[in-house]
């Protein structure tokens, strides 16, 4: 078995075992922390499809993360206020059902990614980074001054949304749900990378001119990947909103985009479990250093710096060796 496969298994099992143990020992906050890791890793898995597989360095993925979050709020807030979602042209009630919210978030994320991607993919390189950032900022400023959903204050959904057969208010059950979604997304990402589409995407990333000469439109391939990526990140956004029972424009800020990207790079770009490793390490550092000094961010910075300089290829790359599968 390849070392990376072993490492992936360790990560998958570790992320499962830690909260279970914490639950047994009566440390519910560790469970919450693990849930956060799973959800942010999910956002990273989404970004990794665009960034790792497709080479699209998007600094605007907070847009999809936020779209997912707001999709949750838009659907759940009316229920909380005992009002219909809309009355015109037909009456539609909101919902507190997670599966419905997830579908809505993914559709909204996919549509957002389609619109943003279609325009952004005209550019490449650093211009792509910046145009995705621009779209993210537009949504951010829009959300700040959108009074219906609290503007800068955001909006609280006091009770977590429901999932058939589960008590989502119980931290461990909500964790299980988030973990399951993460694993499903990793599966999708794995199948995608090995598929014919994944190969076409790799070709489009590495040599778009050549790809076109082979009859593959790099634009269409990349846009498709971007839409899938946006949908997964939006799903993560919906879950994150449910974790906090709260949505605000900060989900849409460029710092959020940057953090999602940091998870991916930290874990290892284009590595299946890279976002999981990256999110886990980042949250762990943040949690551990936070209790350590008022200036903990200084140490966080130094730790990150050490990792970039000396652990090339991210955590997975360093631990599992550089070679990527060439089977």
């Amino acid at each position, binding site marked *: 078995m390849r070392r990376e496969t072993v490492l992936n298994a360790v990560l998958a099992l570790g992320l499962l075992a830690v909260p279970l143990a914490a639950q047994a020992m009566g440390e519910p906050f560790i469970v919450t922390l693990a849930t956060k890791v799973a959800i942010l890793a999910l956002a990273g898995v989404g970004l990794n499809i665009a960034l790792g597989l497709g080479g699209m360095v998007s600094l605007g993925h907070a847009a999809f993360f936020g779209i997912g979050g707001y999709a949750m709020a838009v659907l759940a807030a009316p229920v909380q206020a005992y009002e219909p979602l809309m009355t015109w042209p037909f009456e539609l009630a909101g919902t507190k059902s997670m599966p419905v919210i997830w579908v809505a978030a993914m559709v909204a994320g996919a549509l957002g990614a389609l619109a943003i991607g279609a325009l952004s993919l005209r550019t490449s390189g650093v211009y792509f980074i910046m145009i995705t950032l621009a779209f993210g900022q537009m949504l951010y400023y829009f959300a700040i001054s959108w009074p219906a959903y609290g503007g800068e204050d955001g909006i609280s959904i006091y009770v977590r949304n429901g999932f058939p057969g589960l008590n989502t208010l119980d931290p461990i059950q909500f964790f299980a749900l988030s973990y399951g979604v993460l694993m499903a997304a990793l599966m999708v990402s794995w*199948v*995608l990378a*090995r*598929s*014919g*589409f*994944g*190969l*076409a995407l*790799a*070709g489009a990333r*590495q*040599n778009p*001119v*050549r*790809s*076109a*000469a*082979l*009859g*593959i*439109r790099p634009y269409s*391939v990349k846009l*498709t990947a971007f839409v899938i990526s946006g949908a997964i990140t939006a799903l993560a956004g919906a879950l994150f909103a449910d974790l906090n029972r709260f949505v605000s424009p900060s989900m849409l800020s460029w710092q959020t985009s940057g953090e999602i990207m940091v998870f991916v790079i930290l874990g290892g770009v284009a590595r299946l479990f890279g976002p999981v490793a990256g999110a886990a390490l980042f949250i762990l550092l943040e949690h551990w250093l936070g209790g350590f000094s008022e200036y903990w961010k200084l140490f966080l910075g130094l730790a990150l710096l050490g990792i970039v300089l000396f652990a090339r290829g991210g955590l997975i790359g360093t631990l599992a060796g550089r070679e*990527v599968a*060439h*089977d």
Partner: protein
Amino acid sequence: MTEPVLEVRDLHRAFGALKATDGVSLTLRRSEIHALIGPNGAGKSTLIGLIAGNLKPDAGQVVLNGRDVTQADVAARARAGLARSFQVSAVAAELTVLQNVVLAVQGARGQSFRFFRPALANTGLRAAAEAHIARAGLSGRRAIPAGDLAHGERRRLELAMALALAPRAFVLDEPMAGMGPDGAREMTALLDDLRHEAPILLVEHDMDAVFALADRVSVLVSGRIIASGTVAEIRADPEVQRAYLGEERLE
């Protein structure tokens, strides 16, 4: 006479004040190798770019199998059966030789939007790719990332990818460049063979190969075709000697 597979009609393309392609017309007929020679900077690669769709002409038409493809993009022309190689090797550097060629086969078959089936587990794709790799003489290097290949090997990969498109016409930009003498010889034999599958528009500075292979030769100078004919006619043309071949070739 059969209808030409590829026909270029009065193409024009300028870069600023420079007329890189200045009214070029030429045809490529079934089973022939049509060599395009000319001094450096004459506009050969520009012409290939116009034919393949990487560049848009200012005026003129490109007709492939009787269909006007002037407005079609690069990918559409590739699907319509046009295979090109690049003067500077253009490969996906992190993919292996095999993956590169599978990518090409998959592109040609229009199977690039399959989301579930692993590409390399697809025996149909894989077998076809392996055959092309063998033909280009790279069998032993199948699992090497394309970026790690030596220069000459990369040229072979270029050709393998062109073969993988199973095209109606080849447009090859200096396939011999960078190949050692034995490589050039193998390539010559391979192209000789290939012309029966699809005709070849061959841009090449290796005159040994051109004179051995070409059914017809056109000479491009400053964006215009100044002569066109058989190898013998071209070699004897004093204008061509002066502009391109030099005295050495007078023998």
